């Protein structure tokens, strides 16, 4: 199927979403996705940051779509023409949605563990306005323990529902989900039940913001002071392929590996994540790739080349 996105034409198999097609062209200019997660079934459609404009629905139907559509949940049609960054309307809508995602956000980045690897920070930086007219009180929730390993800062949550899909799809009995309605919605557990299953830790990795944090890592270090290294170990529960975040010889935390759009393809078990915090538990493969635009890239040398090699 032929689809044109921002003037660039490409061929994709039927069943491809506009977002996936745009990512094939370039992951950087593709629409931002705060809720969609390719490895979590049914995710997407909720945050609305990926809205794009269809200027021609298909080769047969040359009419534009009536409204903006979510790129993550809209399938490409043959001959479809899409505007993403070239449409003022899209950029304006996106700016509005970023603002709405932030009006109730505490903006506590200076004390948030996610700072430096936060999708909301990046989104606001790339697509947001510099200010807001929001003058009202922000919504507040107490910080909660959900289970032995995870801390929930509900104030920071953008209700992307990814953690709910993790619980649904990776753990045997989901005992947490969204409680209440509207802007009173919150992530909560079933009558204060602990979230404790072998794969629950993946919620932390899929959470785009600092709402779910690793209790073994909280406040230990800013992420950009840690050294992320690809590592692996023999594991019977999961793939055993992880990133260990080092400070000297100390393993500060273990996370799953993310691809170039920040998604985990191989989820890891809680054993690898929370219980193997010694350097000798791991076979270090080498530095994780860090995009040079990320703050984590400071003091991070991947392919060290001497002047003689250059």
């Amino acid at each position, binding site marked *: 199927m032929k689809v044109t996105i921002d003037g660039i034409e490409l061929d994709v198999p039927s069943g491809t979403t506009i977002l996936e097609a745009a990512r094939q062209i370039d992951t950087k200019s593709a629409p931002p996705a705060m809720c969609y997660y390719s490895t979590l079934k049914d995710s997407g459609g*909720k945050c609305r940051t990926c809205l794009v404009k269809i200027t021609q629905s298909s080769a047969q139907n040359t009419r534009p779509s009536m409204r903006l559509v979510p790129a993550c949940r809209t399938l490409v049609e043959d001959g479809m023409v899409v505007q993403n960054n070239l449409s003022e309307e899209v950029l304006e809508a996106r700016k*509005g949605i970023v603002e709405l*995602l932030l009006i109730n956000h505490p903006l506590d980045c200076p004390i948030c563990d996610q700072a430096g690897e936060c999708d909301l920070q990046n989104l606001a930086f790339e697509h947001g306005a510099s200010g807001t007219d*929001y*003058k009202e009180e922000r*919504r507040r929730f107490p910080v909660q323990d959900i289970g032995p390993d995870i801390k929930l800062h509900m104030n920071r949550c953008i209700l992307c529902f990814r953690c709910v899909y993790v619980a649904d799809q990776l753990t045997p009995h989901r005992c947490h989900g969204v409680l209440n*309605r*509207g*802007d009173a*919605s919150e992530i909560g557990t079933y009558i204060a039940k602990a979230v404790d299953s072998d794969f629950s830790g993946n919620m932390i990795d899929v959470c785009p913001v600092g709402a779910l944090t690793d209790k073994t890592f909280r406040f230990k270090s800013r992420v950009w002071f840690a050294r992320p290294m690809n590592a692996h170990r023999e594991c019977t529960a999961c793939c055993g392929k992880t990133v260990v975040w080092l400070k000297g010889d100390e393993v500060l935390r273990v996370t799953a590996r993310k691809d170039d759009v920040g998604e985990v393809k191989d989820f890891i078990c809680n054993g690898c994540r929370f219980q193997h915090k010694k350097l000798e538990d791991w076979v270090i493969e080498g530095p994780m790739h860090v995009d040079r635009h990320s703050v984590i890239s400071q003091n991070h040398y991947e392919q060290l080349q001497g002047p003689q090699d250059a």
Partner: protein
Amino acid sequence: MQILLENSSVAGIDQFDVYRQHGGYASVEKMLTMAPNDIVEAVKKSGLRGRGGAGFSTGMKWSFLDQKSGKPKYLVCNADEGEPGTFKDRYFMERLPHRLIEGLIVSSYALGVNTAYIYVRGELSWIITQLEDAIAEAKSHGFLGSKILGSEFSLEIYVHPGAGAYICGEESALLESLEGKRGYPRIKPPFPAIAGLYGCPTVVNNVETLAAVPWIVMHGGEAYAAIGIGKSTGTKLISACGNIRKPGVYEIALGLPVEEFIYSDSYCGGLLEGRTLKALIAGGSSVPILPAHLATTTAAGEPRLMTYESLFEGGFESGTMLGSGGFIVLDDKACIVRNTWNFARFYHHESCGQCSPCREGTGWLEKVLERIEHGHGRTEDIDLLVEIAKKIEGKTICAFGDAAAWPIASAIRHFRDEFIEHVSLAKDHV
């Protein structure tokens, strides 16, 4: 013109025997002499449009139902009526429960459906009992259940109460709720006609829509289409409220002038003594508000009629929508800012919270309006409200976002002076 409410004042009409004596269930007998598709064609010819708010062609919706999937098909009656200002389905069901059951039977036959559901707003507990009684009566007389009147057609109807969320009236949220899940609207496509209840092809129709079908079966699509004007055919139930002399539910032939509906003694009977018309909300809380002069005439000076087209004349600049027929009349003493705040409160409270523009935006709208209404508004707040409404409108998963934004944008469009007066009298600012 009474098609739906014809026998509504007959004593005991909610009982099977009385209903039957007045011609009830005749359409079930007649349908068995017809091919299912003949009924679909008759409904198409009738021009009947969905009475739940969107006004989509019922015949068209029916013909979209996937007949080839090999899966069971379902018909779901949307009786979750929760729109502020709209109370016609409730009025209808408590008087004529059998007419709804009859409508479901003939519609199910037309669609090839063997299981139908009525999703009733939970607060209407007595109606749930009435409907269940009506179903039991219809069954015991052979009009419902297996092999209806000895034919090969069987149908079961189940009544399911909602639990009080307005959003469960949105058809895909309704289906989720019916499946026992949280009432979150689904992301479309797929539409229910392809993947609805339990992933099977499903038609969702409003109470009033289904109740019109027996008449169409008895009298033919042409006879129905002869009532009304242009693409607004047939009759419509209008629930009239506000400061009028005769609030209540009226059945009108579409095409009646708005002026006549408000002032005639056959309908609203005019405003209360000494009051004059200030504004009209013609189709329930979700549609744009109109000032008096645009309520009874269009911007071009034509008389405004009670039709889908005439009410929309002028687009959102100077028009509105027929919506679900909740007709709210505001008089010269009504405060538009207060009314707008009240609606904003409702939409904030009822947003399901699934998508960010609506979840965050409805709360913001309410907070700003609350401030203005309580004397803490700023001049900039007025344009801010318009801006927030724009950030929501057209960007959400379901039409709720538009429904929350439109009333506010239109109130400011037509009554800006009143908002300015509120903020200029404000005592302190935030």
